[in-house]
């Protein structure tokens, strides 16, 4: 790999042990993917979730912080595992809550901005076309690549932190023009009315392609999608298919036309998604029984628009006594939604509006055991895909169905 004089200096340890460690790791990753050089990034967005890193990751971050590691480009954090205001009510283990607080301290010392959001692209920073970034949480990466035209690979927690410390990332994959061209054509005739339908579209296509190096091109949605719809589509594609980029003809910036999206090449494969294909995704998440233990709107965190829709449907009503309703967003959106009366409406109805977290990061297996929850109803295809690993029975349905079930305590047949 061709390194600059500055990078050679970093690798020699002249800029500190943390920087040497970070760049050495990045070079090793770059070599596997045939990167010729490193590329400067303007920001890093990292997943620092206690739930996955465990004690060893925690200790590593402590060593880095104590060794004087310091980020050199703005480095923000993804959703975390604990909303300190609600941890007790949710019976989250005290040891985990304490460790999360320590972890935040380590990251702060390194200059990491504790933003706790998986919708940084909606609330913090919107990179422009062609801007190189090093983002983690796959939903943020696919949105940046596809909708904004920025450039990032999936950068997991330690990789994004490494980029924050060095200011560069290996130049391969979605940093390069040739990887960004469409490979598969998806003709969409489905109606796609609800947010969950966009997630279901992502699920159908993700299950079909399931390959990081493929780039689906959507042609045909008959109306212009909203940012929240593209957010659910992207999060779901990334979750089901490990996909990092899509094009939508006439919608996303590198797909003004079909030919533009494919860079002149022909699609390698094609698929049509009609209403039946969307219904088949819902049918793959059948209810285990009528009673619903838990309704969760999360994954990704909700926008102010989404919070408004939930508040309007719940206003003046009550969530059923046997059902828990949990909604997650970030601090900025919770603040705005509180000012607009939406948080009040949801909480008066008995729902919980959590800040800075995403449900699947909150040690959900532990909460399931402590509350005796068995099933979870959600409008997030991404959550439905993940939560089975924690032994919940996931049920994916459209947003109004989820909210009505929270009120009724059961899912209408």
């Amino acid at each position, binding site marked *: 790999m061709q390194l600059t004089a500055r990078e050679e200096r970093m690798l020699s340890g002249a800029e500190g042990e943390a920087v040497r460690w970070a760049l050495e*790791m990045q070079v*090793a*990753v770059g*070599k*596997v*993917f*045939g990167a010729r050089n490193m590329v400067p990034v303007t920001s890093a967005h990292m*997943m620092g*979730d206690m739930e*996955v*890193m*465990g*004690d*060893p*990751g925690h200790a*590593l971050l402590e060593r880095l912080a104590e060794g004087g590691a310091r980020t050199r480009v703005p480095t923000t954090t993804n959703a975390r595992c604990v909303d300190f205001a609600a941890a007790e009510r949710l019976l989250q283990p005290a040891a985990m809550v304490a460790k999360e607080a320590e972890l935040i301290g380590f990251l702060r010392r390194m200059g990491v901005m504790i933003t706790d959001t998986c919708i940084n692209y909606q609330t913090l920073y919107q990179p422009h076309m062609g801007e190189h970034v090093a983002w*983690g*949480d*796959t939903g943020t990466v696919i949105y940046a690549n596809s909708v904004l035209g920025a450039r990032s*690979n*999936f*950068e*997991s*927690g*330690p*990789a994004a932190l490494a980029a924050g410390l060095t200011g560069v990332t290996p130049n391969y*994959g979605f940093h390069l023009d040739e990887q960004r061209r469409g490979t598969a054509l998806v003709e969409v005739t489905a109606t796609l009315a609800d947010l969950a339908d966009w997630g279901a579209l992502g699920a159908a296509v993700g299950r079909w392609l*399931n*390959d*990081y*190096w493929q780039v689906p091109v959507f042609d045909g949605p008959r109306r212009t999608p909203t940012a929240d719809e593209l957010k659910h589509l992207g999060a779901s594609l*990334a*979750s*089901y298919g*490990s996909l990092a980029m899509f094009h939508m003809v006439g919608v996303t910036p590198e797909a003004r036309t079909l030919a533009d999206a494919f860079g002149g090449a022909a699609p390698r494969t094609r698929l049509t998604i009609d209403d039946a294909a969307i219904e088949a995704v819902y049918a793959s998440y059948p209810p285990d029984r009528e009673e619903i233990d838990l309704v969760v709107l999360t994954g990704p965190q909700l926008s102010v628009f989404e919070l408004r829709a939930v508040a309007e449907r719940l206003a003046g009503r009550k969530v059923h006594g046997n059902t828990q309703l949990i909604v997650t967003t970030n601090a900025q959106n919770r603040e705005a939604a509180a000012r607009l009366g939406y948080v009040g409406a949801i909480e008066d109805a008995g729902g919980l509006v959590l800040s800075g977290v995403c449900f*699947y990061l909150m040690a959900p297996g532990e909460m399931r055991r402590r509350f005796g929850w068995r099933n979870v109803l959600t409008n997030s295809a991404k959550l439905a*895909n*993940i939560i*089975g*690993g924690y*032994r919940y029975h996931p049920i994916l349905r459209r947003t109004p169905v989820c909210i009505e079930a929270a009120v009724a305590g059961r899912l209408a047949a």
Partner: protein
Amino acid sequence: MSGPVLRGPAGFGPVVEGEALVSADAFSPRYDLDRDTGVISRKGHAIEGESLAGRILVTPAAKGGVAAGWALYDMQARGIAPKAFVFRTTNPVFVQGCVLAGIGIMDRLEPDPVATLRTGDWIRVDPEAGTVTVLRRARAPVTPNGRRADGRQSG
């Protein structure tokens, strides 16, 4: 008796030998694994109930998100990580996770490792050389009716 040699681009990590655990399904440490025990916990997964600890996981693809970045380091420290990963196609997250944890990883091998290797094969993974060598073939599992459980022709 040595079996086939699979070849591909250089991967990452040390040379290791171990038992292959072959999964027809893609893998994610967040979606599919009980990370306390290192056992595949997702209902209906092709290798549900199998432990990854000390084995070499052979799988078609990396599934889902960024969790592997931290999770492999955690598993390695607790002694429940696999010795290496052999993917048909991997993604950056898995390579980042393996580099942090010091676990070997290879992909894009010919012939296809998922079709060629069998659970129980004793294999040698040499990431720098870009080779996976079958050192000893597993005896094919046989069902009570005399058919092989992996669906291949006997003999």
